[in-house]
């Protein structure tokens, strides 16, 4: 893990959990797994604070603990910290898949780390009640939505227990407890003695599943872009079929027979796809992206989805785009040429890319300097080290370049976060003022204030201030969007690394 990654994680934790948690996590970053006593000593915080911070971190799955000879040792899982950046995406995904209530439930679970079903329903109920949309929540609907999330495996039982030794390596458990709806309703109404019947059964978000869904989205949209809407839908169906027969993170799916694909496609509402299924399969299979492979002829043909290859292609596409944006299209041409030829000499580059010698050299060496391409020296054996006898071959080590770009993403994310924080801090006074005014207005409205009074409060902010505020809000919004966009790239590249 690099310095940049550490800084990024640290600032993410600071933003969401505050300084103490950041401090403890930073210590774990620096020193790896260590005991409570050592953390306390290094951070110079009171032991209760450290405990609290660790508790928060464990609750959200950022810290793992294990028993060693003397007591417990804590270690940080930084990948999970980086997942926080993707929370908005997960919520949006759930919203489109399962609806608004489900999104709220998910948000509640994300905020708490792990939580019981009854509690999450209670909290969501209250939240909807308070929301300005004026919708009337209902417990049975919320329960249904919760069950839907579990059924789709977006939520899983948390296997965290109170005792240290009690951790088991069970498979993810999705069995639902019997919820006592009347008890939950009573609880919402303020009766704290009712038992909803699921104490100690906690739920957490099944990130693995969400990551796979985002991964599938990338693949489907790539095919849609390359071919068309119908092919995209076919790819989606193929991925569904892949889930049924293959372990989650297998490199290639087990063979899917054509008959089953036909069955699945029939249920969709794409008449063109149903009509030309064979042709579309053929197209995806023949495409240079190699997402799909024909592996056998029995049963009308057997197809296998090749995830590993798919992400290699996608990673290449990403890198090519990055090179193009950073160094221009001529540089991208050289980059692709080197990729295509595996090993190539400078002479050949300028000849095949048809770029004037001087420019070609400049671009090649810029790419080399920035580590997008690598150079390999080849000496003729048995000849003295005369310069003429040495060849310099250019090639690309994909893994190296991907790691470099991942690092680049961390850096960019960190910078954008820092900038956002800076923008918020430097305009803190104004943002606070606006918040105060908002609460004041709503309070007055509730008490039936007149229009004049409201206008008076609105006048507290000068036009120039309003303008400034609007600008700052736009800035912050823009930075937030950029953060999500950068994370898209990061996600794709980490997916590549996961498969390779």
């Amino acid at each position, binding site marked *: 893990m690099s310095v940049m990654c550490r800084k990024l994680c640290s600032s993410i934790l600071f933003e969401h959990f505050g300084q103490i948690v950041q401090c403890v996590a930073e210590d774990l970053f620096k020193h790896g797994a260590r005991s409570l006593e050592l953390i306390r000593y290094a951070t110079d915080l009171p032991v209760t604070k450290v405990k609290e911070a660790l508790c928060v971190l464990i609750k959200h799955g950022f810290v793992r603990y294990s028993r060693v000879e003397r007591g417990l040792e804590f270690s940080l899982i930084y990948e999970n910290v980086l997942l926080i950046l993707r929370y908005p995406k997960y919520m949006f995904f759930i919203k489109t898949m399962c609806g608004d209530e489900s999104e709220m439930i998910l948000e509640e679970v994300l905020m708490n780390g792990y939580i019981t079903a009854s509690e999450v329903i209670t909290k969501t109920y209250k939240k909807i009640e308070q929301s300005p949309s004026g919708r009337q929540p209902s417990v049975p609907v919320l329960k249904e939505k919760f069950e839907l999330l579990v059924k789709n495996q977006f939520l899983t039982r948390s296997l965290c227990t109170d005792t240290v030794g009690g951790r088991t390596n069970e498979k993810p458990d999705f069995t639902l407890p019997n919820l006592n709806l009347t008890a939950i309703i009573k609880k919402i109404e303020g009766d704290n003695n009712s038992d909803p019947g699921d104490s100690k059964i906690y739920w957490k978000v099944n990130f693995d599943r969400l990551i796979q869904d985002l991964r599938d989205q990338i693949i489907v949209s*790539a095919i849609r*872009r*390359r*071919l*068309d809407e*119908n*092919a995209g839908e076919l790819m989606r169906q193929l991925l569904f079929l892949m889930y049924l027969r293959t372990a989650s993170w297998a490199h290639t799916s087990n063979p899917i027979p054509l008959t089953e694909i036909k069955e699945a496609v029939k249920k969709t509402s794409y008449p063109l796809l149903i*009509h*030309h299924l064979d*042709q*579309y399969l*053929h*197209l995806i299979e023949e495409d*240079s*992206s190699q997402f799909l492979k024909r592996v056998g002829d029995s049963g009308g043909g057997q197809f296998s989805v090749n995830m590993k290859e798919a992400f290699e*292609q*996608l990673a290449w*596409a*990403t890198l*090519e*785009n*990055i090179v*193009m*944006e*950073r160094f221009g*299209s001529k540089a*991208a*041409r050289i980059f*692709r*040429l080197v990729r*295509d030829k595996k090993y190539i000499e400078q002479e050949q580059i300028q000849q*095949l*890319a*048809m*770029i*004037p*010698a001087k*420019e070609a050299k400049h671009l090649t060496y810029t790419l080399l300097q920035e580590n997008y391409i690598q150079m390999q020296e080849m000496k003729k054996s048995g000849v003295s080290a005369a310069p003429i006898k040495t060849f310099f071959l250019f090639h690309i080590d994909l893994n190296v370049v991907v790691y470099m*770009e991942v690092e*680049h*993403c961390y*850096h*960019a994310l*960190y*910078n*954008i976060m*820092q*900038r956002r924080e*800076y923008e918020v801090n430097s305009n803190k006074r104004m943002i606070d003022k606006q918040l105060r005014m908002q609460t004041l207005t709503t309070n007055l409205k509730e008490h039936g204030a007149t229009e004049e009074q409201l206008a008076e409060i609105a006048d507290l902010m000068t036009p120039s201030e309003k303008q400034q505020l609007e600008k700052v809000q736009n*800035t912050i919004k*823009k*930075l937030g969007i*950029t953060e*999500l*966009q*950068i*994370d*898209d790239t*990061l996600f*794709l590249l980490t997916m590549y690394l996961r498969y390779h």
Partner: protein
Amino acid sequence: MEIEAGTSKEQDATNADTNPFEIIEQKILALAQARPKGISDKDLIIEMPDLPSVQRAQIINKLLSQGHFDLFKQGGSLLYRLRDPSKAKIAKGADNEEKIVYSIIEEAGNKGIWIRDIRFKSNLMPTQLSKILKSLEIKKFIKAVKSVAASKKKVYMLYNLEPDTSVTGGAWYQDQDFEAEFVDVLNQQCYRFLEKKREQMNSCRGGPIMARNVTFASSKEVWKFISDLGISKVKLSVEDLEMILNTLVYDGKVERTLSGDGSILYRAIEPLLDSPGLIKSTCGVCPVRKHCCDIGDVTPTKCQYITEWLE
């Protein structure tokens, strides 16, 4: 003159008649002409069994000194090969050094040879060599050609040879300059052609595979389109255009496939991904990223690029 003098001397020595002597000479030459690979002593004995070996040696020596023959050694026996007439021409009125330099240049073929390499091979002094080269050039035996590989490098080759494409650079060079603009224009035009083909896809009603096949264009088709456009002053070959099309492949805009009959097909394609999110941010394309840090001159909080981008 020389020949006559030579024969008369030999005549004195052998006391033989002039006519049969010359007839034998012609015979040997005809024999050598019939066998471009060369003739050996054995062949001569078989062909002319009544010729005494002393006389045969004399005739051969004479022909060699006149430059009609090249002498080779193959498998222990000597081989005489007829020189082509262009070389015979230089033999007249040229001294030994000129002959050597000429043969070195001839060896280099249409790729030409650099003056330094001639010097190393011939072991002649630079001044002397340049004199010889000049005289050969004036006599139009050789010519100097500027190479595109290095603008100041001149290479020499025989006068009647067409320089190799590696020296002239082919259609893409004019006076040793690479015509980048010309290439770019062709690149764009080829892409335009393939794009148009791709647009036809939308109006195709015969299923997705048919629609895709419509978008394919063979290199010949593209060549015809470009020739008809008439943007090129020089005549381009299909191979030249394939080079241009390959640059489009390396631009990631076009895909190349082989068709059943061996010709190469091209089609415009859409990239797999949109431009990635990373480079939509300023930090993704930042030129001073290496210096970017929490402290110092380049920091995210006072970054000029981000400020401009936010404006």
